[in-house]
C-alpha cells in the first residue's frame, strides 16, 4: 500500500509540515478564544447597538469561504499601491501574518456564536438567584454565566477546533508549507496518492483523535454533573 522508501524520505518534511499546522492552529485558536469572550457577551446583549454589529460580523465571515478570505487578504490587498505604502504593509507582506489573521477572524466568528448560544442556555433560575443576591452584571457573568456556558460549549467547541485544524490546509495556497502542501509536493514528485495524501490523512487523523481525546477528558471533568450514575430505578412519585 505504501511505498516505504518514498514515505520515509518524505517524513521529515511531513513533520516540519505538522509543526506549521500546529502553530497555525494554536495561534488562531488562542486569538479566537480571547476575542470571542467579549464578542459573545455583546452578541447576547439586549442593546441592539452592541448585538447587531457582532451579528453582522459573524454572518459575513461565516457566509464566505475561507479560501476566498485568504486570497482577498494575501493577494487582494497587495494589489493596492496605498496598501503597499501603508505602515501596516510589513505585516500583510508576511504570509504567516495573513494566515494568522484570516484563521483568527474565521474561528472568532464561529466561536462567538457557540459561546453566545451557550450563554443563552443558562437556566433562568440561576440568573434570578444571582440577581436576588444583589450581584452586579459583571459578577453574574464571572460567577454564573461563563462557568456554566463554557462547560456547555465544550462539545461544540471541540468541533470548531477540529474544523479549524482541517481548515489550516488553506494556508498551503499562500506559500506556507504545512501538511497539505507537503502532501501536494510528494504527490507531484512521486505520483502516488497513498504516499502523499494518504500519509497526510494519517497525520490529520491522529491530530483529530488527539484533539477529540483531550476534549473528552475535559468533558469528563467539567460536565461531570451531567453524568451522575443513577443507582437503581427512579422511584415513582
Amino acid at each position: 500500500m505504501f511505498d516505504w522508501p518514498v514515505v520515509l524520505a518524505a517524513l521529515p518534511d511531513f513533520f516540519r509540515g505538522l509543526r506549521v499546522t500546529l502553530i497555525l492552529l494554536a495561534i488562531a485558536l488562542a486569538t479566537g478564544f480571547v476575542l470571542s469572550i467579549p464578542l459573545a457577551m455583546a452578541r447576547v446583549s439586549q442593546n441592539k447597538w452592541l448585538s447587531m454589529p457582532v451579528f453582522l460580523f459573524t454572518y459575513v465571515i461565516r457566509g464566505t469561504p475561507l479560501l476566498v478570505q485568504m486570497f482577498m487578504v494575501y493577494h487582494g490587498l497587495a494589489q493596492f499601491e496605498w496598501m503597499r505604502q501603508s505602515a501596516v504593509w510589513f505585516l500583510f507582506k508576511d504570509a504567516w501574518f495573513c494566515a494568522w489573521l484570516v484563521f483568527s477572524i474565521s474561528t472568532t466568528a464561529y466561536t462567538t456564536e457557540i459561546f453566545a448560544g451557550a450563554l443563552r442556555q443558562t437556566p433562568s433560575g440561576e440568573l434570578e438567584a444571582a440577581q436576588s443576591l444583589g450581584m452586579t452584571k459583571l459578577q453574574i457573568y464571572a460567577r454564573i454565566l461563563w462557568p456554566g456556558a463554557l462547560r456547555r460549549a465544550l462539545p461544540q467547541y471541540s468541533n470548531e477546533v477540529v474544523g479549524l485544524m482541517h481548515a489550516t490546509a488553506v494556508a498551503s495556497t499562500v506559500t506556507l508549507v504545512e501538511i497539505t502542501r507537503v502532501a501536494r509536493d510528494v504527490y507531484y514528485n512521486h505520483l502516488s496518492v497513498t504516499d502523499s495524501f494518504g500519509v497526510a490523512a494519517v497525520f490529520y487523523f491522529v491530530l483529530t483523535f488527539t484533539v477529540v481525546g483531550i476534549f473528552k477528558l475535559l468533558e469528563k471533568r467539567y460536565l461531570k454533573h451531567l453524568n451522575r450514575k443513577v443507582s437503581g430505578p427512579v422511584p415513582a412519585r
Partner: protein
Amino acid sequence: MIRKLLIAAAFAALTTTSALAQQALRIGVEGNYPPFSSIAPDGKLSGFDIDIANAVCAELKVTCTLVQQEWDGMLPALNARKFDMIVASMTITEERLKAVDFSDPYYDVPSRWVGKVGSFPDVKPETLKGKKIIVLRNSPRAKFVQDNYKDSEILLVAKETEVYMELAAGRGDIAVGSSVVSSEGFLKKPEGKGYGQIGDTFRIGTGGGVGIAVRKTDGDLKARINAALKTIRANGTYKAMAAKYFDFDISGS
C-alpha cells in the same frame, strides 16, 4: 491470390486508419501561463500551447478535447488517464522522464531574472546572498536556485504567474522565471513598471526544451506526435503560429 492479399492488406490498412481517426484524444492544458495558454472570462482557452495542441490534432486527424488542469496536478492526471497528453509548456527534465515520456521539444525558451531596475548589478550567488528569490515550486528553476543559491532565502510559489504577483507585492527581492512569461505576464503590463531583466538570459540543463508529455505506455502516440510536429515545422504552420505571439525565435532549433 496476390489480388486477394492486396485487398486484405488494403482492408486492414483502412480499418486501422479509421480506428485511429475515430479515436478521440483528450489533451491536458493549463490556462494560467500567457501567452502559451490563458482562459478568457467566457472560459475559452487560447495561446501558443493551445494552437500547438490543435495543430498536432489536425495533423493526427483525430478529434481532440482540451481538458483544463491545474499545474501541480498535471503529471498525476496524465497517469491517472484524465487525459492522454499534456501540452502545457512542460520542460523535459530527468525527474519527469521517470514518470512520463516526452515528444521532441516543440519550443525552448530561456530563463531570466527579473527585479526592480538597478536593484542588483548581477545575479551571482554572492550578490543575492541573504536576499529572497521567488521561483515556481516543483520546477527545474526551483531546483536550480536551491542548488546554486544556498545562502539566499527562497520563496516557492504554486503558480508561475504568482512569481510576479509576489515580486510586485514586495514579498521577495528578485524573481527567476521564463523569459516569455515575465515579459507577457508582467514587464509589458502596468504592474511591471520599474521592473526589468537582471543579468543575462540562461538555459537550465542542456537541450531540455518543452515537450508534449505522454504516458510511458503510449510509445505509438509519441511517434505520431513527433511526426506531426515535424510536419507542422516543415510546412510553415509552426512559423505562422509562433509569429502571432513572439518576436523572436522560440523553436529551439
